[in-house]
């Protein structure tokens, strides 16, 4: 979907992070980058502030770096931004009642799928068992009376 992906970027032409805004301390800068990739540019679609060239994204990037320089931990910086801009700013949605279904979706899908497979297997083996159930003597006698040939069960499948 590159055509469409491309639209995402259309107001931007220059780059996201510019040399001017980077921190001198490489370790601190690396932490800033890591945090920035998980924060959404609020005026863009589905783009992190690290990738976006929007001026709001730049402001947020600078803010993240300022807070890190003030000595905040990564979590503190994230919480600070989260408190200011709400859930929408987090590209990794927070765990809360409203997102419970979202986060458990893969597990639910796997469990539901596994249950369906198990039930289908049971149904299958149930059906497979049925024809092997021996006929009662009475049934056999009636069949013989009707002239139905006895057939070998093994030919019924494959």
């Amino acid at each position, binding site marked *: *979907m*590159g*055509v*469409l*992906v*491309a*639209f*995402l*970027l*259309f*107001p931007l*032409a*220059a*780059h*996201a*992070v*510019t*040399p*001017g805004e*980077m921190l001198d301390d490489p370790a601190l800068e690396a932490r800033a980058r890591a945090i920035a*990739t*998980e924060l*959404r540019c609020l005026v863009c*679609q*589905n*783009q*992190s502030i690290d*990738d976006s060239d929007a001026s709001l994204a730049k402001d947020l990037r600078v803010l993240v770096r300022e807070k890190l320089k003030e000595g905040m931990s990564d979590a503190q910086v994230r919480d600070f931004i989260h408190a200011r801009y*709400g*859930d*929408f*700013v*987090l*590209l*990794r*949605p*927070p765990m809360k009642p*409203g*997102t419970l*279904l*979202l*986060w458990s*979706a*893969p597990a*639910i*899908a*796997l469990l539901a*799928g*596994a249950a369906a*497979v198990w039930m*289908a*297997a049971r*149904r*299958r*083996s149930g*059906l*497979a068992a049925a024809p092997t159930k021996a006929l009662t003597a009475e049934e056999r006698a009636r069949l013989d009376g009707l002239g139905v040939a006895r057939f070998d069960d093994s030919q019924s*499948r*494959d």
Partner: protein
Amino acid sequence: MIVETGHYALVLALALALAQFAIPFIGARLNDAALMRVARPAAITQFLFVALSYGALTYAHVVSDFSLVNVIENSHSLKPFIYKISGVWGNHEGSMLLWVLVLSLCGALIAVFSNAMPDRLRADALAVQGLLGAAFLLFILQTSNPFARVAPAPWEGRDLNPILQDPGLAIHPPLLYLGYVGFSIVFSFAAAALIGGRIDAGWARVIRPWTLFAWIALTLGIAMGSYWAYYTLGWGGFWFWDPVENASLMPWIAGTALVHSAAVMEKREALKVWTIFLAILAFSLSLLGTFLVRSGVLTSVHAFASDPDRGVFILAILVFFIGGALALFALRAGALPVGGLFSPISREGALVLNNLLLSACCATVVVGTLYPLALEAITGEKISVGAPFFNTVLIPIALPLALLMPIGQMLSWKRGDLAAALQRLRVAFVVGVVAAAAFGAWYGTPFLSIVTAGIAIYLVVGALSDLVLRARTSSGRPSLKRLVGLPLSAFGTSFAHAGMGLTLLGLAATGWGVESIVAMKPSSFYEVGPYQIGIESVSPRQGPNYSEVFAVMAVRRDGATLATIEPAKRFYQVRRMSRSEAGIVTIGLGQVYAAIGESHEDGTIDARLYWKPLVTLIWIGALIMAIGGALSLADRRLRIGVARRAAAPALEPAE
């Protein structure tokens, strides 16, 4: 006049589509062969009329007929010729017309290549295809007419969005549509089988080539789009988990599951109900994707259309077809007989597990894509579901799936021997572990990259060792003669799996990429991984409909210049928009990637420089996957049209 002919052809195509639906459908109910025979010519003519209409719109774009709103808004007389042609689908109306063109092409393909199947199945499938065509033709005529005129006509057009003026756009959407609209064929056959109530291995034989065909096109389309994003966006990202990308990924995952379950159904008559369900699901997800992209519901800049009428119309089409198919499924599926039996440890069992994991991935992508929309609609809360979420939840499902792929290949049908299968994979295990250690020693962390790379190598070796093992003679030596004699579908499976392994390796290697963001001074060199990059010159240049500033950069290693690259920043005058053009050179399997930004008064220029080791494997792998699909498609036993002959010796050994 040509434009009016195109418009009128579209109306006639609608009439033909309705006939293609109603007449054969009634014929099939009355068991009237004459009525059923209408289906094929109707499908072929419908396609010809849509093609005529499409040709007329292309003509209007090529000659820059600015009396058409569509041409004004998306073209310019100075636009290069190739973009005049590809610009036809670079907008909502034209893109929908391409969608319908591919849909009617699918109908025509069924009509041409369906000699070997029951008349009723063909008639019903073409009827469903006709109904789909009618719905979308009506949508275009009602809400998205590409032939709308304006008077007086302006002298000049507004040009195409610069980001779409790229060779990538010329190939990507048609391939993508061929893929996701291609699943309509499988959908129609599923609906037809449910209507007719007969579903057997013969049906699986009919749909398998179509599934492969759509899957190949979609694989290539997605890969193409991702490479295009990679080189146009200026920072080397290739997948963003954007809803619009997910729209193409969802049918791909469902289609991948379908290719596998249809194989089980064809060989062993098992998984019938599930295969039918997947056949419905794959195209339903395509419809969902169309709805997401075309309706504007994402309120993203992506959705070129934000007219609510369109959204409601597509939603109605979506509800009608998905709802209808699922209702039919619910009514009929329970009555389907259970197919062949198999033990849990068998090829079938492995494919069931494969389908389970793929379905979980698919469900996760669907939920992740729709969740923010649903949550906002219900509670008003706004959340974002982005790459960190998808990576976190999908990697734990995808990696085990990759581990299982070669094991499944090694198990035999019906009842397999797990210990023996693992035994046969010991070379792959050892090579995988050694490779992981080597990658770890060479590139270092992240740990996830090391593990993923090890699994990827194991996957490639495992997939290929299946071929080698099957080519062994009784003496235990692989023989070339036996290798050549293996069925093409065996090569297909191995290639597709190995391709997946290579893609996985490319993805793993993104963790080892090196990035350098610098204000580059002329004549100094900057380290990026093992390379040094320096600017030789920065100068302006004039293109046909843009002006650009481009830098000539030298890529060196140990003082020797390996290549020069020319990243540029383009400015498109008409739309007053700019975009960057990356400078890329492929070295081995990796790429050096450079993009430039602002220039400063002190003579420096902002630049992003990257060394991306093994990155090309992401797309090479996808290409090999597609080749694998094509090999399977070419297998004589699966080829369209041989179904009847092949059906006779039904006892041919299942492999």
